[in-house]
Each structure stands twice: as C-alpha cells, then as structure tokens.
C-alpha cells in the first residue's frame, strides 16, 4: 500500500527508518479500532497526521462520546 500524500517526505524521528502503511490498533471508550497508518518499519513509531487527527479521528471521537 502506498503512503498517503500527507505522510510522504517523513522519516522516523526516533531511528530514521522509512515509513510504511500498517494496521494500527487503538482503544477508545472500551472500543477497539484498527486503522491503516504510516509507521516506521524499523521501530514501529506511528505517524498521525494533523489531517487525520482533526478529521476522521475527531469525527469518530465525537460519535463515540455520543455528541
């Protein structure tokens, strides 16, 4: 899977590794979710872009909080 536009040009700040798209699991309000995100192929550090944080993730959070 190719990197989304907002994730191109990044490398891992911790180890300098390249990013690849992986399935990342997270838990919020007792729900377990999976989302495809760019992550370092060496150490696994995940990149959450501003667009994702303020877009889909914020929308999902609002719905889970029943707002």
């Amino acid at each position, binding site marked *: 899977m190719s990197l989304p536009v907002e994730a191109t040009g990044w490398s891992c700040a911790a180890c300098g590794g390249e990013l690849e798209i992986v399935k990342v699991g997270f838990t*919020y*309000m*007792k*729900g377990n*979710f*999976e*989302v495809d995100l760019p992550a370092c192929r060496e150490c696994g550090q995940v990149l959450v872009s501003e667009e994702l944080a303020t877009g*889909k*993730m914020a*929308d*999902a*959070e609002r*719905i*889970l909080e*029943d707002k």
Partner: protein
Amino acid sequence: MGDLSLKPSPYESVLLRDVTGTTIRPGGLTLTDRALELCSFAIGTQLLDVGCGAGASVEHLRSCYGYDACGVDISPTLIAEGLLRNPALQLSVAAAEALPFAADSFDGILCECVLSLVEEPLKALAEFERMLRSGGSLILSDLYVKTATEPKGNLRGAVTRNQAESWLTQSGFTIVMWEDHTALLNELAARLILAGCSLDGLCCGTSGSGQRPGYYLLVARTA
C-alpha cells in the same frame, strides 16, 4: 437489509461489509447471542430471520445453536450471495410485509436493524404476529429516536421508544425486555468513519448538528 429501490443498496457495499463483517448491523452476532440467551429456545426451534442479508445469522443460528432457522431479505443480491456461500441455507427473497409462509410457522422471529427500513412497519409487525405460534418470541433490534424533538439528518424510519412499544402492543405483542445498545451503534459509526466509509444512506448516519439515533434490543412475545 436492502431497500426497495433499483439502485444498489448501501448495505450491499463491499467497503461497508469490510468493516461490519458478515453481519451488517451494530453489535453483529454478539447482540444476536444476547437476545438468544434471553429467549432460551430449545434445539430444533423453528426461527425466521427477517432481513437476513447474506444469511450470516441464519448460518450462526443453525451451526452454533442447532435451531431450524431460515431467512428472508428484500435484496436478491444478498440472498444470492448467501446461497452461493452455503447452498444448504434456507434463504429466500421476500419483503417483511409479505412473508411467504403459513400462519403459526415459527417459534421465534429475529428482525435486526431492519424495521426502520421497512416501508410499512405496522404491516410487517402484523405479519410477524401471524407467523408466530402462541407464546412465540420476536427479537427486535433497531434505531430509535432518543428525544421527542424533530430529528435532523438520516434517521429514516426510526421512531421513539414509545412509538415502537405502542406499535408492538397494537400488533398483539407483550414486551418482555428492552435494552439500550446505543454504544454499539456509535462504535460501528466510528469504525466506518475510520475506514473512510461514508455514513450517507446508512442507519448510523447523521453528522454535524443532526440528532444522533439510539439503538435498542427488545424481546416481545405473542399471547
């Protein structure tokens, strides 16, 4: 469950089912299991799943519980898919308001996340009552409108809890259990958003300032 229009139903969407799995509703089979736990049907009990989609629940009822289950759905696409997956399943195309079975054919009917999509819900409930034997159970889960104010957005045929209960009573049912499972609806909507799936046309829709629906599970019995 598919709708009556000729354009493809959002419930037939591959992207949607990548998120929901084989069951296209909040809670999936977990909520079905919860209802079955409350009903305690004996092995071999004859059950009908109205709005069965591709028959995942029918398969579950037969293989995990040993029930004599069959299903109907308005979508020929989903029924064909179910029969392709498992030709032994008893699945047929039918509307909830015109079920192709004789009266008193079943001990239980499941209708999960479907009634709010049905054109004539009262007619469907009358059919369910006709299909069920005396003391039979109706397992119903669906969206509901949580406040009396006019809902915005895409709540389609969802009604208030009072309205749903009134319909059931009017149709000859006694409600024996009602539970709120809105958290499961919200979780499904969040999963769909994170997967990049549009909520347009789906039961868990509404965005922005629109009133969000709740989700209930109930069990009702015939006299």
